[in-house]
Structure formats: C-alpha cells, structure tokens
C-alpha cells in the first residue's frame, strides 16, 4: 500500500499557489453601465430636468434640424425631439422591465419546476405552453388590447408580460432539463439535499447565464413590440411619447425630417446594445466553468 496522502507531483506544482485574480471588466463595460444608468435617471427625473415640455407644440418651428436650442431638432408639430426622447424612455423602459418581470416571474419558476419534477405536471404544463406558443404573441396582444380599454401603461405591461410567459417557460425549461439530468444533481440529492435546495442552490446558478442572456434579448424584443403596438394605436395614447411610437409616427415624414427617426432609433439601439454588452461581459466575467489554463 502506498503512502498517504498521495497526490500527483505535477498537480501540486501547478496548483499550490493561490488562484489567479480575475481580469477587470474594462472601460467599455463601465461606459455601458453609465449609459444605462443615465437612461434610467433620465426616465425617472424627466419632469424635473431642465428640458422642454414634450407636448408643447411650437408651430413657428416645425421640422427644424438640430440646433443649440433644440438639440435633436423638432418634429412636424414643433415639439422638441430631445425632450420627447427622454420622456419616451419612460414608457419604453417600464414596458421592457415590467413585462420581463412578469414573464420571468411566472415563466421561470414554472419552467424550472416542470423540468425538475417531470411527469404529469410537466407534460400538461408544457403542452399548454406549446399551444399558447402556436398562437402568435403579437396577434394575441392586439386582440386583448383592442378590447381592454381604456389602455393604460399598466395594462400594456401586463398583456405583453403574459404573452412572454410561454417563451420564457420554454427557454428556462430546456435549460433546466439539460442541467437536471447531470450527476451532480443526483449527488446533491443523495447527500440529503431537499428539492427546494436543489432548485435554488444547484439548478438556479447553472441556468442563470442562459436566463440573463434571454432576459436581455427579451427586454429588446418587448420594447420593439411596444413600438409595433403603438404603430397600430394600441399602446399608450398619443401624444404621450415612447421610442416605439416616435419611430412609427416619423415614417410619414421620413424624407422631410430624417432627424425624427434617427434620434429615437439611436436611443433604442444604444440602450439595447449596452444592455447586451453588459450581459455578455458579466457572463464572461463570472463564468467559472471555462478552464483557463
């Protein structure tokens, strides 16, 4: 019998020193965080910021280009575009955050439970969700919002949120399934871990990267969906601005006043780009499954 304890000399040589430090997140990451922060602050404090009233119509200055007085120019009714973009972020950000909160709040726990429990519960729930998925989300939201009047921001968030539940459910269930069959789940179980513990401590951290990626794509999709609904007149009533309805309204006068479409689009693009970049960077930073040798 050999000496005890026994280990590979090479293993020891490599691993005796302390684990290495993580690389920093980088400047670009913090710029993105700053930009998202700025957007959120702008949305919350829009009415106390020194900007023009987004509803004030100045008929002597319609379709003007950017100037010192109107940073982003004015629209076809003489309203300040900068101010409307800032106020518009209120609707867009609340729809993005609110709808995803509902979608993940309902879809994620159900998806995890179904994948973990399997059996009849999973079979019934998954089939119900797939039937819902077969029905296009946009048609469903249009149908409900057409009849559920008067439309408020709250109702729009609820309807879009519910429409996103099956999508979230499917992604989370699939992600959980791939983890739930791994040996370490069984290993945790035979060490006496309760189901709740396995769900929260073993499964959740493993599907978090997928969930976060999907969340960020979801926020982007939902903001765009709000824009599409606005185009059909099924979102917040005009003249309340949102990025989506600003882009849609501007289509008719695109050739006359391109600024009107450029700025809200840029705001939307930058916001989503930053969100995705942050998500990507965070995932890379906290990914411990990659072997870095």
């Amino acid at each position, binding site marked *: 019998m050999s000496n005890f304890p026994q280990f590979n000399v090479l293993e020891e040589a490599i691993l005796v020193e302390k684990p290495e430090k993580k690389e920093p997140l980088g400047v670009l990451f913090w710029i993105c965080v700053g930009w998202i922060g700025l957007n959120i602050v702008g949305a919350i404090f829009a009415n106390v910021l020194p900007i023009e009233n987004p509803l004030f119509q100045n008929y002597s200055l319609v379709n003007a280009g950017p100037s010192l007085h109107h940073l982003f120019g004015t629209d076809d009714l003489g309203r300040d575009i900068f101010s409307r973009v800032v106020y518009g972020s209120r609707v867009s950000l609340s729809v993005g955050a609110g709808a995803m909160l509902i979608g993940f709040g309902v879809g994620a726990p159900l998806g995890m439970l179904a994948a973990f429990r399997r059996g009849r519960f999973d079979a019934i729930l998954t089939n119900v969700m797939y039937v819902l998925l077969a029905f296009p989300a946009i048609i469903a939201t249009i149908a409900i919002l057409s009849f559920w009047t008067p439309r408020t921001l709250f109702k729009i968030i609820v309807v879009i949120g519910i429409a996103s539940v099956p999508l979230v459910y499917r992604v989370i269930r699939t992600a959980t399934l791939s983890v739930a069959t791994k040996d370490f789940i069984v290993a*945790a179980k035979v060490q006496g871990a309760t189901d709740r513990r396995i769900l929260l401590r073993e499964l959740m951290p493993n599907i978090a990267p997928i969930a976060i990626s999907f969340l960020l794509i979801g926020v982007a999709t939902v903001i765009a969906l709000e824009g599409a609904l606005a185009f059909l007149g099924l979102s917040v009533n005009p003249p309340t601005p949102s990025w989506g309805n600003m882009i849609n309204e501007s289509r008719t006068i695109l050739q006359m006043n391109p600024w009107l479409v450029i700025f809200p689009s840029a705001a939307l693009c930058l916001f989503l780009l930053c969100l995705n970049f942050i998500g990507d960077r965070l995932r890379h930073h906290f990914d411990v499954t990659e072997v870095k040798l």
Partner: protein
Amino acid sequence: MSFDNKKLLAVKDLATTFHTAGGDLPAVGGVSFDMESNQTIGIVGESGSGKTVLSRTIMGLQQRTNVTVTGSVLLSGFEMVGASEDEKRERWGTEVAMIFQDPMTSLNPVMKVGKQIDETLRVRLGMSKADAKARAIELLELVGIPSPQYRYDAYPGQLSGGMRQRVVIAISLACSPKLLLADEPTTGLDVTIQAQILNLLEELKERLEMSVILVTHDLGVVATRTSRIIVMYAGRIVEIGSTREVFAHHRMPYTRALLESSPKVSNASHTRLTTIPGRPPNLLKLTQGCSFAPRCSYATEKCHVDRPELEAADEPGHMFACWNPLPKTRRTVKK
C-alpha cells in the same frame, strides 16, 4: 444465508423492471446478497449487466414513473424499497453515500468545491459557517488534496479529473456514511490516477470503518481490494463468493470468460486478448434458459430452456448459477 437485522446491508430478491415502449425490461432480475460492516464487495460485469441499476436501486434512486421495484433492501435494518423520499433523505449521506462514475459531471460547475462540502455539513449536521469551513478543509486534506485552504475556493473547472474525484469522495464522506457505494469511480480517470483513487478509497475505508461496494467492469480493480465479488450477467448474479475463491476456483463459465478477457502481465507481448463471442442479451427478449447460454461454449440443451439457480460450491458463501459448471480443479489463475 440469513437475513437478520444486524447485517449492514441485506438485499433479497431485488428486481427492478423498467416499463418501456418495447415491453418490460428486467434490468435487475432477482438479486440477493448481504454484507457485513467493514467489508468491501466488488460487483463486476459487462456493460449492461445491471450493475449501475442495482447500485442505484440499493440507494433508492429511481425514476418516478415507468419503473417497478420489488424485493427488499434492508440498510441497517431499514427497508429502503418503498420508503418515502423523506425517510430515504434522512439516511442518504449518513447511512449510505454514493460516488459517481464521472467526476466531470458529479460536481456543480458553478459552486466552489469547498462550498459544496460545506453545504452538506451545514444542512445535515447543523454546523456553523466557520465550523463547516474548517471541517471541509479537513476533509479536503483527508482525501489528499494539496494546500486545501486554497483549493477550498477553487471551482471544479480549475481542478483536474483526479482532484475532482477526490473532492467527490470528500463530499460523500462529509456525514460519515456507514456504506459507500462507488459506481465505477475510476472509469473517467487515467490509469495512474485510477490506482491513487482506489488506494485512497481503501485507506479511507480502513480509517473511517466504512463498508464499500465497488461497482466496476475492471477485474483488476476488484482483485486486490475486495473481500467478496459478485459477478453479474443480464441483471442476475451468476457467481458470488470470496475474492480469492472466485478468482481461483470459479465454476461459472462466464466468470472464466471475464477473467480470460483481461490482460495479464505474464502474457507474451502482442498476444491477442480472448474476447467473449457475441453480445450481452437484449433484456427485452430474455429466454427461459440461462441468459449466457447463447455465448457459452459449454451450453447444452438444458441451458437454453431452464434457468439455473444459484447453488452452493465447496467453500461456504461461494455460489454459482450454472448447469454445467467448470470442474472443481484446484488450479490457480495465472496472475
């Protein structure tokens, strides 16, 4: 054989049947054996012989649906078959623990290895955070991990396969189980690490006064480390006995075939290994006769129609299931 309650483990007529679309699949078909404390038993057999299903059934790990388990598994006098999840959970970790085949998948990749040991200590034994950490580092040291205080904060992805299997062993030892089920603990590791892990298991067994069931397809693994061997074929025990007896005086042709198909140092170089002709039977289409009959060179008419039961050989405790057993020679197997 008596099945009194003093035995650490008494398995009787244990059968696990999966209900598949193609019919009922008897993965384990009526297995009985028992083991005392402080013993190491080896379960050997080809792939698909029911070793893993047997060990999982002993643990009480089954799918929720499409499976029937009959018979009895008495673990320190407690009936595991048909016990509720809560009752089993109480015994998992403290009475019986399990080590899995692949250390790459049996650790949570996003949790520090130290935390994974902590978890059990705090939940099961109610230790404080600081105590649990100290104990976890102790356990890491016990399984031979160098500088355990640093490795405590490592993620599984930062450790090699051998180190991971050591961590898996440390986790399973956290609640000092009386019985450790090791399901092919070294299959996923390279040969030099295999020996280390097996030696470690043996050391720990002595030191912590545990019993070990070593499930493997590698006869070399069980040869020196077990006191008894169970040879399985198509979900049934075909030969059981003390390790020395099974190696030296096996009576079942399948055991011989297994022994002959493993490489020996005494063989001349470039010797072709003997293989067992044919393939393990399809468990969905088992015949009335001996499952090994189609591949057995000793098979007679009777073997194909009538299944042999285990019968006693010369040495007490040594049993085999065969109509045409190998002669009782006092020959020794070439090592």
